[in-house]
Every structure is written in structure tokens, then in C-alpha cells.
């Protein structure tokens, strides 16, 4: 077996349920902890952003139209499939970026799986907790219900490779949003492995789209896209975030960024029902009461 050629995986972008190279045809080298070449990742372009947003947009109504119970099951299924591929995820996490011990990588993978399960459980509970029946001065029922904003663009921070991605993605899609994710620029490979898991986990095509490439190329067209309803800029540095926020303001796109507590990725402070709420819009309904 020693002279066997390795069959290496091509890490392609995940757009509309399909694994695709960039429209631009570009790629960029991804280095491991020792500076060695791990793989070439796709270097996405603004047209890939456009295509991903179009895919997310067309998937959104169908995903939001699923029952909350069903969305919870789908998220739980993601955790199940990840669990069966724990070793693969751990190995990818261990060699990505600055690298870490196998124990630390296994711990991060386990935390990521647990986070999916945690948010899956919220699927049919958050609207009860965050919404409610309001007392009003009149013969009406007055109900507030959180509804998904629509398409959310997520800029994932560079490291750690897996846990921030899951921590920011799960609360976005659990309520019925669809997402366009700009994966970590430095550690994009594990994001694509997650995409393979999503493709096998009953997540409908277009609900999650994952792009890889250079942030300073991709954030601007994503932030400026009129069809993006909310932006998570956790992975942007101050300058890029300010520029993206300016672009977003022109189309009244809500901008969100993780707090210091939420950036303690391994802690419970990184997960919260209020992270679901921030990507929801509250709809209030008045209904006449019978006499």
C-alpha cells in the first residue's frame, strides 16, 4: 500500500444544495499549522455571492413554512450525522489553522454537536418564550409572534475552525431563516465538511449556502445585496465591519455581531435563545374577541 496515490478531496463551495467551483474559476491554498499545504479551497467571487443569495431567497419561504417541530428534527438530524463522523471532524479541526491537540479537537467537535442539539430543542419553544399574548385595553386578543427576517449573511470568524460556525449558523436557521455563510478565510475546509453533513441531513437545498474565499472581496457584495435581510459580522475586523455596516444601512439591513461573552465559544454564554430572537422580526396580531 505504500506506493498508493492518495485520493484527495476537492473542497467545493455549497450553493443551493450543490457543491460547485467558483464562477470565477479561482482557488487559493490553505495552509496547516506547520505551513504545509492542506488543500486548495475555492476562492469565491461576487457572482457566487449573488447565486448563493438567490438560492437562499428561493428556499426561504419553504423552510419557514415547515412546522417548528420539523425544523427541530432536521437540526437534530444534523447533530446525528455529525456524531457519526466525529473522527473526521476532529482530524480536520486538529490540523486547521494554528492546530491543536487531538483531545482539544475532539472536545470542540463534541461541543459543536451538542450546540446543534441545544438549538434543535429550541425550534418549537422559542416563539412561546419570545412571543406571547399581550394584555390590551379592548375586546381583542393581542398576540406577538417572532418570525424569521428572511435571508441572513453570516461572516464566520477565523478560529476556532468549527465551533463559531455552528454557534452562529444554528440560531439563524432554527427559526426559518436561510443563510449565506462566508466561511473562515484561514480554516475553510472544515466548513465544507460541515456542508457535506448538511447535504445528508434533510436540510433542504438552499437553506444553508457556504462560500469560501477572501473576506475583503465577498463581504461587500453580500452586505450591499438588497435581498439580504440581516448580517452577522462577527468574523469581520473593525474596518471591514464598518464598511459592511455602511453598505447595509443603505438597504436597511439589520447588522449583528457577537458580544464578548458570546465569543467564549466553548462556554454556555455562546448559546442563547436571544440569538434566535435577534434574527427574528416580531409580528403582532390583533384579533377581535367574541362577546
Amino acid at each position, binding site marked *: 500500500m505504500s506506493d498508493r496515490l492518495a485520493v484527495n478531496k476537492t473542497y467545493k463551495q455549497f450553493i443551493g444544495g450543490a457543491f460547485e467551483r467558483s464562477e470565477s474559476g479561482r482557488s487559493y491554498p490553505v495552509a496547516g499549522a506547520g505551513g504545509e499545504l492542506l488543500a486548495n479551497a475555492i476562492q469565491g467571487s461576487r457572482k457566487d*455571492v*449573488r447565486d448563493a*443569495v438567490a438560492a437562499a*431567497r428561493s428556499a426561504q419561504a419553504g423552510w419557514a413554512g415547515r412546522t417548528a417541530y420539523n425544523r427541530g428534527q432536521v437540526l437534530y438530524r444534523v447533530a446525528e450525522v455529525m456524531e457519526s463522523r466525529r473522527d473526521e471532524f476532529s482530524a480536520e479541526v486538529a490540523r486547521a489553522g494554528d492546530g491543536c491537540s487531538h483531545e482539544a479537537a475532539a472536545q470542540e467537535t463534541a461541543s459543536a454537536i451538542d450546540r446543534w442539539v441545544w438549538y434543535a430543542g429550541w425550534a418549537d419553544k422559542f416563539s412561546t418564550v419570545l412571543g406571547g399574548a399581550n394584555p390590551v385595553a379592548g375586546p381583542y386578543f393581542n398576540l406577538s409572534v417572532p418570525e424569521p427576517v428572511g435571508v441572513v449573511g453570516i461572516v464566520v470568524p477565523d478560529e476556532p475552525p468549527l465551533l463559531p460556525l455552528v454557534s452562529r449558523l444554528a440560531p439563524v436557521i432554527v427559526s426559518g431563516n436561510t443563510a449565506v455563510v462566508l466561511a473562515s478565510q484561514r480554516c475553510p475546509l472544515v466548513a465544507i465538511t460541515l456542508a457535506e453533513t448538511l447535504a445528508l441531513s434533510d436540510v433542504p437545498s438552499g437553506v444553508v449556502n457556504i462560500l469560501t474565499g477572501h473576506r475583503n472581496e465577498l463581504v461587500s*457584495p453580500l452586505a*450591499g*445585496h*438588497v*435581498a439580504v435581510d440581516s448580517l452577522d459580522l462577527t468574523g469581520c475586523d473593525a474596518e471591514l465591519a464598518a464598511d459592511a455596516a455602511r453598505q447595509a444601512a*443603505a*438597504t436597511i439591513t439589520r447588522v449583528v455581531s457577537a458580544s464578548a461573552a458570546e465569543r467564549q465559544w466553548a462556554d454556555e454564554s455562546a448559546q442563547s435563545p436571544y440569538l434566535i430572537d435577534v434574527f427574528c422580526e416580531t409580528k403582532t396580531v390583533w384579533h377581535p374577541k367574541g362577546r
Partner: protein
Amino acid sequence: MTDLLAVETSAGPADAVAGVRITPVDAVGLEQRAASLCTRSIKTSSKADALDLAIRVMDLTTLEGADTPERVQALCTRARHPDAADWSVPPVAAVCVYPELVPVAAEALADSPVAVASVAGGFPAGLAPLDARMAEIAWAVAAGADEVDIVLNRSAFLSGRYQKAYDEIAAAKQACGSAHLKVILETGELGSYDQIRQSSMLAMVAGADFIKTSTGKIGTSATPAVALCMAEAIRDMAEQTGRAVGLKLAGGIRTAKQAWHYLVIVGETLGSGWLTPERFRLGASSLLNDVLMQRAKLLDGRYQRREDFSVD
């Protein structure tokens, strides 16, 4: 005319109509050429020009049983100023409606450059009694239609009764008077590129001012290969007789990208002389919004959202 009769008695496909030669079509070559023309990339200022041209040659169409006078009036308002927020957008070429709604459209477009087009002649099958079809055409013209879209009698054409198909188009041309006559071939029902080429020639020789691909009422509509096939027939006609006939593509054209692919096909086959509303039209209803979206993207650099553009 003698050639046409000769064709009618022969068992094989027609090779001439009224003295105009019809060359056979190389289907593989045609499709490959059409596909290669559709790979052309159009950038920046050319794209802006192509989008404006696509609007200027558009026949904004509504052909539904549920069309009301109010709906047609709204469409006419859009035809004059396709983007209510940006009056630099040029008006479309024509509004295309059913005959009963021609008076409404004619009134709404009275002092505008936009023409009124009417389908007539037993649209979409073209199998009403001949008298009724001619009366319908005359009625539409009298009611104010500048252009009349009739359908080829496919029943006659496909059963080899070329003379009957020819005579009906010639009669329709007479009934039109000064109005322009567009003949719809319904290419999706013709079966082969050779038949499309033959029916194109037959319609042109019989007096059509425009030949048009489809009614939009069946599944198969305009395709790049069909557009190229008909454009080549028009080129042959112009070379042999000196008569310039127009081309109208309709059905299934929904995106700006498709529209400029067709502009490339027509420009490359017939020359830029055909890229005017007098000789080229795009019949569409949902295309306009996509063109306006791409136009807005070019102007402010942001990708646009479909919901921000008018539904009708």
C-alpha cells in the same frame, strides 16, 4: 406561385416557395452555433445599451382570459414608463392584447410612441372559420391596432396544404390594411428545423411583415436555435428578394441574460440593421422586471430584490 403549387403535389419537403429557394437546415450545426452565440459575455457599457435596447424592442404582453380593462390600462402605464421611479428608462415598443381590449389600449396609449398590437385570426390555434378570422383582424385594426399577430394555420401546413396556408396569410395581410402583420409559426408544434425554415419562407412570401416564434400558449417556446433558424430564413429572404422582414421572439423569455443572448444571435446573423423596434421584437410579460433589476444593478452596484419591482 407555380412553385408553391408544385411543392404541394410533391411528397418530399418543399424546396421553394413562389420562386424563393429554401435551403435545408443542418440541425446539429444550427444548435451548436446558437449555443456558442449564447456564451458571449457582455460587459458594462455594452450591457447597459443591451438592456435599454431589450426594453425598446419589447412587446409587453398580456393574453389571459382574466384580462380586465384596468389591468390593460396599468400595463399601458408601465409600457410608457417601465420604471415608475426612473423616467430615463425608454418606453417599450408595443403593448400586445386580445382584440376586445384593443380600444382600451389604444386610448391609454393615444399620445405615446408605444404601438398597440392585437392577436387576432382565431388565436392561438387559428382554426376558426376563415370569414370569422378575417373579420376579427379587420375589427382589431378598426379598433386601433397598429400591429396584428395572427397564427399560421398549422393544420394546413403540417398536412401539406401549403397553398391554403399561404392564401390565408395573404388574405390576412389584405384584411390588415396599413397595420403591420406578424405571423406566429408556433415553432414548438412544427417538429423540425426544416419545417420552421419552410414555414418562415412561406409566411414571408405570403406578405408577413414579421415572423414570430410562438403564442406562449404551449410548453415549447422560443429557443436560441429556433431564433437562429428563423433569422437565417430572414437573411435568405433579404438576399434573394431584397425585402427586409422582422423577427419577433416570444414565449419563455424571462431573464435579461436570455434577452441579450437573442440580441447577439440577431445582431450576428442579420446585422445591427435588425436591432431596432422596426425589425426586431421580444414578446414577454415577466422579462421586463428582470431587465429593470439588472439595469438598477448596473446603476447603483447592488444586487437587487425581486420584491422591489412591480408585479404587473
